[in-house]
């Protein structure tokens, strides 16, 4: 079979991306091959810049170019309320809703025994430190309403319940399941405003 080594290599790399199968990877690779050099180099540069400049905020764990991130630096935000989410994309979601004035904590994952993801594998320890330092009145557990997100919320609840802090969970107003990533703004707003004391 006819093959070009560097083309194959690119197809191989592209097909590792989420949502891209072998066929789409080929289509993109041929597009890149045909496209003007400047455009493609700009794309390559953007990817490089992202990986070189973006890091995790040392306070909240969100992705950021500056450390601490803009939200953690912002003096107008209420630092006594921490909203705990699974992924950086969830912060974008809450920010789009514009109603939340507190700060965040990004776990970058959820606890899942069957996938072997434990509390040490996600950004939990720094959250505990933040709460232990005091000045935190409320922790909103905004992990996904699916089995892994619930497990993570219960775990955090147990971990935090000995500390003097109010712990709330997003109200869902909808059946359990799904990822927050795919919630619309209204649903998220309702969930935030209807949040409840977590109890066990």
């Amino acid at each position, binding site marked *: 079979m006819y093959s070009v080594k560097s083309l194959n290599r690119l197809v191989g790399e592209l097909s590792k991306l*989420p*949502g*891209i*199968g072998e066929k789409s990877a080929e289509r993109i690779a041929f597009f890149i091959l045909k496209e003007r050099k400047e455009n493609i180099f700009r794309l390559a540069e953007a990817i490089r810049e992202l990986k070189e400049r973006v890091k995790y905020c040392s306070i909240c764990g969100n992705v950021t170019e500056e450390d601490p991130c803009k939200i953690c630096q912002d003096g107008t935000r209420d630092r006594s309320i921490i909203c705990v989410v699974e992924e950086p994309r969830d912060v974008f979601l809450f920010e789009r809703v514009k109603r939340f004035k507190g700060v965040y904590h990004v776990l970058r994952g959820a606890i*899942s*025994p*069957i*996938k*072997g993801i*434990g*509390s040490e594998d996600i950004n939990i320890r720094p959250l505990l430190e933040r709460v232990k330092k005091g000045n935190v009145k409320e922790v909103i557990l905004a992990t996904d*309403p*699916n*089995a892994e997100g*619930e*497990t993570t919320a*219960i*775990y955090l609840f*147990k*971990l935090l*319940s*000995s500390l003097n802090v109010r712990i709330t969970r997003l109200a869902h107003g*909808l*059946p*359990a*399941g*799904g*990822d*927050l*990533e*795919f*919630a619309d703004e209204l*649903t998220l707003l309702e969930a935030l405003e209807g949040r409840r004391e977590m109890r*066990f």
Partner: protein
Amino acid sequence: MSLYKTKAIVLKDYDLKEQDKIVIFYSLKYGKIRIVAKGGRKIKSKFAPAIQPPSYLNLLVYRYGRDDLDILSESWIVHPFLGIRRDLVRFAYSSYIAELVIKLSAEREASPALFYLILKILFLMEKIPKRDLPLLIRSFELKSLSILGYKPSLENCIYCGERVEEANISSFGVSEGGIICESCQKRHKRKLNISRETIKALKFLLYSNPEKSTKLRLEEKVQREVEKLLKDYLLYRIGDKMLTSSFIDNFKNLEEREG
């Protein structure tokens, strides 16, 4: 294309591209199956509430052929096992069961016996006192191994085939899958690694129903020996470490610390 209906238990789910999920079920009619739940990650997906492990469901599934993944058409929750999902330790145990089934069973090989065993274990797991959960798991390990054709030989020596009295059993061969009599043990220079009480406990767990097994009261030492032996045997059978076992201990510790 065809449609089929089956009862099934959710074992594991993972993200596919965009908003879809792949769900691994243990089904009554087809054993272990992988099915695509389109839009399963969406918060308002009709499937999302159902496909949470370890829910017990009724499924209606599209089948396109051998080389394509089946697609979920409808799902109905029979029992969501909320009592397991809302308890860290129970959830860790149910994850252990799911991992064991995924690693031990073959794809699309039906075993109604295994299906009903998993179901029974989950229903018990939801309600029995937590201290009885380890024995429930040991019962599941032995019974599922037997159903899948890996039943350990507990009566006859795995080398000479002779029936061995409990008093004369001296070791258990993990790679051979059974007990070894005294003379074979000496001939094959095997370590003495099992006590008479442990053999008794193994037999009880293998032949009694799971409810009865959970009421068994064993000495700490025997319970540990049973656990260790089954762990080694499973490791040998699966050839892979169980990811979920450390979670059981971690979650237990957290609950004990909390009091």
